[in-house]
């Protein structure tokens, strides 16, 4: 076999293994990590990170309202999860999503504890380099600008007041002289139109 042929074979075997991992359920991934010798289920650990890091990051953005803190939370929660799986301390790996959510709630609750934990885990695992960062939904700001300006003025104002000025529905309702229900309906309609215009609906299809 030529050198080139060998390289192709290796790539195919690796591709086959990656496909099996990516097709596995969350529970299967978690059980594989738990049953492997510590640190040897690299593909499964990377897959678990890719599947859940962005969800933890979203949770962090929602509850911590700070991008850097949300990134830190995602890092901490996934390292903690892998650590517990390796140690056999996750009682029900089939419910790994629930475990990760619980860990997110717990760690987001204490910034000081979070910082200490990160130092400890980083020292233990050295670096998260083996784990690829998950693809996050990104938006083209120019597209958002174009699409936002195509909306009706009231809808546009509701979105800016909600997501930039962080106003509540009652506050926006007072501003616009309408009811809170009207604000919520306008927000639903406007964000859905914006999503369609920007193309995020299509981009999210599997």
């Amino acid at each position, binding site marked *: 076999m030529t050198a080139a042929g060998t390289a192709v074979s290796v790539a195919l075997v690796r591709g086959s293994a990656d496909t099996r991992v990516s097709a596995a359920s*969350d529970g299967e991934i978690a059980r594989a990590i738990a049953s492997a010798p510590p640190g040897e289920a690299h593909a499964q650990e990377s897959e678990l990170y890719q*599947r*859940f890091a*962005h*969800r933890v990051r*979203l*949770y962090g*953005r*929602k509850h911590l309202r700070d991008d850097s803190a949300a990134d830190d939370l995602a890092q901490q929660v996934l390292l903690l999860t892998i650590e517990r799986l390796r140690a056999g301390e996750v009682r029900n790996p089939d*419910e790994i*999503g*629930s475990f*990760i*959510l619980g860990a*997110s709630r717990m760690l987001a609750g204490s910034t000081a504890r979070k910082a200490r934990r990160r130092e400890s885990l980083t020292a233990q695992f050295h670096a998260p380099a083996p784990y690829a960062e998950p693809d*996050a*939904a*990104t*938006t*083209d*700001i120019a597209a*958002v*600008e174009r699409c*936002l*300006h195509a909306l*009706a*003025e*009231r809808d*546009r*104002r509701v*979105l*800016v*007041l*909600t*997501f*930039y*000025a962080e106003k*509540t*529905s009652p506050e926006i309702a*007072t*501003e*616009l*002289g*309408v009811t809170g229900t009207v604000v*919520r309906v306008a*927000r*639903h309609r406007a*964000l*859905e139109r*914006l*999503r369609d215009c*920007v193309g*995020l*609906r299509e981009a*999210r299809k*599997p």
Partner: protein
Amino acid sequence: MTDPRCPSPIGFTDVVDYWAGELTRAEEERIEAHVFGCAPCARELEAADALARGIAAMARDGRLHTVVTDGILNRLAADGVRIRMFTLEGDAVVPCAVWAGDDLVVARIRADFTGVDAVTIVTRKGSGEEVGRLSDVAVRPGQREILNAFSAARLRTFPETLVHVSVTTATRDAGAGGGERTLAEFTLDHGGSFERPAGPQ
């Protein structure tokens, strides 16, 4: 439906309410529990987050063409957005220009809005070309001014020109002015785009 593989998908309206902080803690926890077990619905949440962040990023870049409030302007200023303000009031022609450091230009439009609950603001170049139209702009009882924001980047593309701003409101009597009444008209003398002088003049 978010995805046929999710047996009980979260609706986009719930996702929007979640991000907007409209849900009770119990409702938020229900959504979070679902999302941590459901990749397709997590993508819905991710899409809403991406849009919300895009809107905020756009505002922080001063790329707004909309009616704003003093509260929004204060927040923009705190975020480092450089705002230039012009007041439109009465008959005087208002000299204006956009400078190199400007991010956002705001026209503070003052008029008598008594008895009016919504207006349309149309901006035209001296040539008659319409360059902005804000329809159905809400007016609160007692409101005396409307803050109309423009992206400075867009204004930099304007040549030296007069700019006409008209503020109209719909009338119930279609026979009066074709169903539209003019509340105020203003003229700005746009001098173009300038670099800031290097030092005190």
